[in-house]
């Protein structure tokens, strides 16, 4: 279905990434957000608080991130599309309810505008150091989807994608900005509502007596009931059977938790998004994401000026990780260069996919600024020389 025109600010705008993210949420149909202020993410909900009463919806500032990350899930079960926005310290507090969303299959979106850590770290400066936390941060086994915009335009576009994937796969979906992408201002084109595809909630068509809330469809995702319609749905973070009832038997745990992973992993080809350029015939491929991909582009251009055959592979979906694509690249190149604003996170996934078939060279940066293009260039040249 198409977006509700009420939430779509069609036109050409000059927006920062945080504000573009808010417009993406509104265009996707988000009508509820519960937040707690934290730099450098607060601008997203400040704009939402200003805009949503003119569209029809609710913003509530909660008492902390624990509350924000569960209030939005109450709103989702109440019928809203909902999201929350935070940065590292708040993201750490939200881990409890990321697990709850995964276990209860609550479709919802979390935006993390990453800053330097650990702890309070660098409140106003960038990092990409929550990339493993977003995948593994809550306890237990589960799978998520995480998207990495590298421009305000993508903050708009991928926030819509995040809401659509959340509804389709009924899992928490993350939009992983960083401080630079969040605060950089660029042109953002918002298309007319009838050109924006919006995934509707997968409400069941079955009557209450025939409906089991956790009986999956063929795509391994169950349909949802509407509350207040006599379904008497039971939702619990305990291990549960297809009726939603607690059941502690190992076989039930096995069936449920495997499905939570399988519904993402077996649909990975439909979920994974990436951008590649001149990978074919390259000696070296730079694998990057978010703001670092834009610094990497400069290094790639410099290397090409020197005659180096260098390709670009940009992760748009960090999770699920495009391991098949990286494994295929590894068969054909001398090495892969992986710059990231952390001391080595996604590079571990690259190494796992490459499986020793090519050199993998991390270009680490502890955060606080972006890389110098020369540092990435030097890594490219070193790997090329072998």
């Amino acid at each position, binding site marked *: 279905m198409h977006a509700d025109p009420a939430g779509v600010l069609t036109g050409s705008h000059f927006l920062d990434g945080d504000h573009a993210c808010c417009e993406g949420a509104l265009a996707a149909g988000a009508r*509820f957000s519960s937040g707690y202020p934290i730099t450098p993410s607060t601008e997203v909900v400040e704009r939402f608080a200003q805009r949503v*009463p003119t569209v029809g919806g*609710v913003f509530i500032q909660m008492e*902390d991130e*624990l509350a924000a990350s*569960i209030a939005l*899930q109450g709103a989702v079960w*109440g019928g*809203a599309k909902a999201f929350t926005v935070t940065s590292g310290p708040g993201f750490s507090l939200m881990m409890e309810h990321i697990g709850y969303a995964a276990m209860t299959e609550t479709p919802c979106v979390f935006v993390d505008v990453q800053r330097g850590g650990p702890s309070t770290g660098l409140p106003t400066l960038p990092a990409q150091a929550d990339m493993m936390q977003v995948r593994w941060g809550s306890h237990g086994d589960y799978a998520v989807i995480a998207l990495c915009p590298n421009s305000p335009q993508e903050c708009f576009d991928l926030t819509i994608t995040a809401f659509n994937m959340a509804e389709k796969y009924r899992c928490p979906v993350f939009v992983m900005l960083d401080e630079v992408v969040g605060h950089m201002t660029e042109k953002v084109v918002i298309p007319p509502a009838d050109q924006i595809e919006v995934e509707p909630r997968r409400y069941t068509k079955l009557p209450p007596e025939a409906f089991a809330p956790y009986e999956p469809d063929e795509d391994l995702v169950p349909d949802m009931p509407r*509350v207040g319609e006599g379904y008497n749905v039971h939702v619990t973070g305990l291990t549960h059977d297809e009726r939603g009832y607690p059941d502690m038997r190992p076989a039930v745990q096995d069936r449920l938790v495997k499905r939570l992973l399988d519904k993402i992993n077996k649909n990975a080809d439909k979920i994974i998004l990436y951008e590649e350029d001149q990978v074919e015939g390259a000696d070296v491929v730079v694998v990057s994401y978010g703001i670092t991909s834009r610094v990497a582009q400069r290094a790639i251009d410099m290397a090409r000026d020197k005659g180096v055959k260098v390709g670009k592979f940009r992760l748009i979906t960090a999770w699920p990780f495009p391991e098949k694509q990286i494994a295929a690249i590894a068969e054909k190149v001398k090495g892969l260069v992986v710059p990231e604003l952390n001391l080595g996170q996604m590079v571990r996934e690259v190494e796992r996919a490459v499986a020793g078939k090519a050199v993998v060279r991390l270009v680490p940066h502890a955060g606080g600024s972006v890389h110098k293009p020369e540092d990435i260039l030097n890594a490219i040249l070193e790997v090329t020389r072998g």
Partner: protein
Amino acid sequence: MAEASVVVPQNPVEQFLRMDRIPHIWCPGCGIGTSVNSFAHALIDAKIDTKHLAIVSGIGCSGRVAGYTKFDSFHTTHGRAIPFATGLKLANPKLNVVVYSGDGDLFAIGGNHLIHAARRNVDLKVICINNLIYAMTGGQTAPTTPGLVTTSTNPYGTYDPSFNLPYLVEAAGAVYVARWTAFHVKQLARAMQEMFAKKGFSFIEVLSPCPTLYQRRNKMGDGLDTMKFYKQASKVRNGAPTSEVALTKSGEIVVGKFVDRERSDYGVLMHDTLADALGEDYVETEACSCQ
């Protein structure tokens, strides 16, 4: 001789229970089930539209109420029933949202959420089963445990001062505050009916025995002995200043309705402020529906 046929009418409470989940996990002598019985009678007597009733619980023995009641029911995380319920109510104001949970859940790990929901006056009906202990995990000291009792984490006696729940909730802004015990089943059901008639953050404390972990460890007898104690020690004092209703190990239990006042609830405050500030630009919603 003709066979006698006996018609056993269905227990009127059964319609509100997930009978396929019975038997429940609560111990003999526990007061949680008793409170659910009062709740069911309140639903009948107040003619509550249960299709639009949602129950939200946290974690713990009392948190299991959501799992046994046949409504839209949400068993959330420890302490977070109230913020979940806040989102549910604000996104779907047609729902009548009841939070049913325990003292440890609502006042320790969830204490911050509770006082803020009361401050905002979100239209939630909060039923707090107070068994003075963390029961599900084996009888540890809670913020409600009175002084000079033995718990698994205070084996030499408790010395943490405890919360006086009605006093705290009144100060935070609740429009309705009452306390009854598992002995006062009729009064409790009536209080629940009154609570359904209120709009705003309403709170009932239900003092409940935990024979397995509180009474036994403190040599206070079983569930029945506790009922006798509740009967003997309770004193009805409607309108009592909440500052005077703190509980002690074996002293007087002041019960009754302490607070019943009017204050605009969060939905009204939000609506009026936005409508006033935005005029024609304000888009009122009955629900943030994504259909």
